[in-house]
């Protein structure tokens, strides 16, 4: 298995994004990765209840709404992943005793919902103008029956796969921020998937830069 990985050999699902999709929120973004679409709204820093205030950093609240609207345990799990990732990225110490609310609405799910939600959250945070340490990019991949690694699997590939792995990288040193997985896989498969996703995260960071430059030119 080759360790040297060339970015050019990867193709992620086509990404499309629009900023300020919601006029009333402080920052919002709608992102489609292939067929999967999510909408994220960021509000803050806001005034919050005394008991949830922290004197050294802002309190982050993440709400994940599915298309059906029924809350479930799986959604709470997604919320906690997104909250922990955002907490490392946002410079919360600049906004003590305030709250930041991130609301994510699933619009379409054709595989890779969580990574799409994470990328969309990052774009909405950029739009809101909150201070951040770095930007982050989430990449999902699947280990199929024969042990091959598939980047950004489709819904069918994901259901038939032996394992699903998700990684979130930061932009400074491409370090791993968050990693979560389901299914069984070998250690070498994990290592390979990690390196492939790390290389693929470059594409997402380039996409962020493109979209920000488009928006910066008009203001």
């Amino acid at each position, binding site marked *: 298995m080759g360790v040297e990985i060339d970015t050019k050999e990867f193709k992620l699902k086509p990404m499309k994004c629009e*900023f300020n999709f919601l006029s009333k929120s*402080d*920052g919002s973004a709608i992102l489609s990765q292939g067929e999967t679409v999510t909408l994220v709204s960021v*509000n*803050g*820093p*806001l*005034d919050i209840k005394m008991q949830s205030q922290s004197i050294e950093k802002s309190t982050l609240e993440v709400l994940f709404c599915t298309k059906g609207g029924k809350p479930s345990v799986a959604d709470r799990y997604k919320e906690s992943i997104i909250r922990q990732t955002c907490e490392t*990225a946002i*410079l919360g110490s*600049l*906004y*003590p*005793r*305030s*709250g930041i609310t991130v609301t994510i609405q699933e619009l379409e799910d054709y595989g890779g919902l969580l990574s799409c939600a994470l990328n969309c959250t990052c774009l909405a945070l*950029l*739009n*809101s*103008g*909150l*201070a*951040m*340490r*770095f*930007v982050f990019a989430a990449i999902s991949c699947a280990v199929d029956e024969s042990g091959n690694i598939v980047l950004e699997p489709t819904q069918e590939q994901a259901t038939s796969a032996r394992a699903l792995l998700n990684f979130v990288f*930061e*932009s*400074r040193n491409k370090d791993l921020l968050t990693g979560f997985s389901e299914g069984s896989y070998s250690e070498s498969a994990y290592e390979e998937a990690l390196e492939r996703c790390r290389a693929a995260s470059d594409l997402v*960071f380039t996409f*962020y*830069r493109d979209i*920000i*430059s488009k*928006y*910066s030119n*008009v*203001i």
Partner: protein
Amino acid sequence: MKASVGDVVLPGDYCEEISAVGEKAKVIIGPGLQKEIDHVYVTKAGILKKRNPNTYWVDNYQKRYIPARGENVIGVVVQKAGDIFRVDVGSSTTAALSYLSFEGATKKNKPDVQIGDVVYAKMLVASKDMEPELVCVDSHGKKGRMGVLSDGFVFKCSLNLIRKILNPHCPLLESLKNEWPFELAAGMNGRIWIKANTMRETIALGNAILGAEYLSDEEIKSMCTNIATILAGHVS
């Protein structure tokens, strides 16, 4: 990633130029930049800008106001608490405005400010750990243009639009003031107060300002002439 002045930057980028200049001379880093042990890092997405001598900042899109010292803002009085007024300026906490910080105000002679009044004031104290404090007088005790704004119409917009129309190179107010008379106060917190003679003129003025957000200087000029002709009744 390395960045230089004029580039589009994302959080996590660093600028070596600032650190290099900083070793020789004093550097001022503004919003969107943060000094860490090794480099000066960018914390907001936008364009890295520089003004001589050695002032750097990131020009980014933002709607939520974060109080900053010395800025003129427009707020709404929401509460009278003892000897201070609490003013909503759009930030996470309300700002305090002492009743003694009006021109000619004494303990006996209190200013006439009611709940719901709109005030144009200057940020005197703005720190992330403290409640922001406003004043309606300058350091000579004169009110200048600050104080309660009566009548008129207040609307909200993004912080970039305020910076754009207050920029001396922006032709918007230059073109509009020749067309019909009006009064205007722009707060750095993303609120604009306008007052014109008639309702039609007020609406036209508000639309002209909001419409200018994504237009170039040339487009702004032609838009202003357009609105003026419609308002004068030449075109229905």
